[in-house]
């Protein structure tokens, strides 16, 4: 399959089919808390998209070169300290600590940069920028990338390069942006409705989220049907094997 088709399928699968909010339930706290106004929701979504891309870049680099089993940098250092050792150096127990540190650092960096160079944008983001540190979307994306990083060939089933990791992160952020903007648009209309007193606030938001999740279920299977369309034109020679691999059971 050619590169563009791969990218397109990864994008659709991440943003629509496996939408962060409606499929994995990550980022539900801001999804419920910050979806009252459309402009705030858009700001939050944009900030998350931005931070998640930077965090993905950093976490992929750290995982590939330092943390993963057999990572080049740590292996080189270990060989330097213990010449002749053939042990596989594995620092993956530090993954979570490093990721959360990287995320906190990235948020801090983005905050400082935006405050210095885009004061208007900084004012629009307000308190949401520091809050992004504890946004599940970002850690979830880092963890998902972690599963696809293996410097030693064959150590993970589907290894991603930095390009794929960045595309995944970007579209994970865009999926979140899409979800929170749809929800904010609906909630602005909802202010004119007569909601039962006990469901006001989070209750009705979750009911709407349930219906939206049902709608997003409609995207299921879109990637495999797209693959069948894309594969024969893109790479005729590889078509039979790829088609048989894509067909669900």
């Amino acid at each position, binding site marked *: 399959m050619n590169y563009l088709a791969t990218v397109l399928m990864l994008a659709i699968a991440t943003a629509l089919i496996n939408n962060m909010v*409606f499929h994995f339930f990550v980022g*539900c706290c801001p999804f*419920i808390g910050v979806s009252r106004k459309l402009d705030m929701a858009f700001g939050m979504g944009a900030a998350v998209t931005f931070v998640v891309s930077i965090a993905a870049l950093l976490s992929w680099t750290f995982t590939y070169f330092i943390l993963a089993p057999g990572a080049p940098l740590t292996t080189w250092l270990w060989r330097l300290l213990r010449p002749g050792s053939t042990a596989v150096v594995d620092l993956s127990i530090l993954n979570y*600590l490093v990721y*959360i540190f990287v995320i906190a650092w990235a948020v801090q960096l983005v905050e400082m940069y935006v405050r210095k160079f885009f004061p208007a944008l900084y004012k629009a983001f307000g308190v949401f920028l520091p809050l992004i*540190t504890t946004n*599940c979307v970002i*850690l979830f994306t880092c963890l998902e990338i972690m599963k696809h990083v293996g410097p030693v060939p064959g150590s993970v089933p589907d290894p991603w390069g930095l390009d794929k990791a960045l595309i995944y992160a970007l579209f994970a952020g865009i999926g979140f942006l899409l979800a929170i903007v749809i929800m904010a648009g609906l909630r602005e209309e909802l202010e004119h409705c007569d909601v039962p007193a006990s469901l006001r606030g989070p209750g009705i938001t*979750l009911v709407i989220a*349930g219906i939206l999740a049902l709608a997003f279920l409609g995207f299921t299977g879109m990637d495999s049907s797209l693959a069948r369309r894309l594969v024969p034109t893109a790479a005729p020679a590889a078509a039979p094997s790829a088609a048989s691999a894509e067909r669900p059971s």
Partner: protein
Amino acid sequence: MDRHLPTPAERFIRGILPENPVLRQVLGICPTLAVTNTMEGAITMAGAVLFVLTCANVLVSLLRPLLKPHLRILVFTLTIATFVTIADRFLAAYMYDMSKQLGPYIPLIIVNCIIIARCEVCGSKQSVPAAFLDAVGQSLGFALALGAIATVREVLGFGTWFGRWLGIRLLPATLSDRVWAPWTVMILPPGAFLTLALLLGAVNWAGARLQKAEVSR
């Protein structure tokens, strides 16, 4: 200093229902929705949160005199991340299937709002016994909410309750589809959102009724 703050026993009681983390404060929604399609997943998740929250809250309470205001969130997060790594490795070693099923939601405890909120509200302000009881109370409240949602979802979605551990089957599997068929939607994401929404509505409704009864009395 502790005059304005609740006593340890109050902290414990409040966590279970009056300040239930999920049903009253609407925190920690991600794991609540994600792991509650089976009772086993919900209980394992609640156990992991109990361990992490208790350890983190007690440790933060011990570190209280050393905390600097501008660095405290970072200290909380790193403390939590350490205990989550322990819980995650433990589950991967002794409950491999469960660890596979819960997947990324165990590491996601790091950014669970409940734990950071408890460290901020209680751990960084009160002594060790209060922090400990607060953590246990909040975790029991979390387990209660998760158990309630998982019961609805597993019974309606699979017809079982603790199906994999105890093998309890509440709704027969052999009935024809015309009598009762499993509601697959309850296992899928929409079922999670709707169950939690209705549970929140019910809790709010009951709370309002109780308040009204108290006022009229």
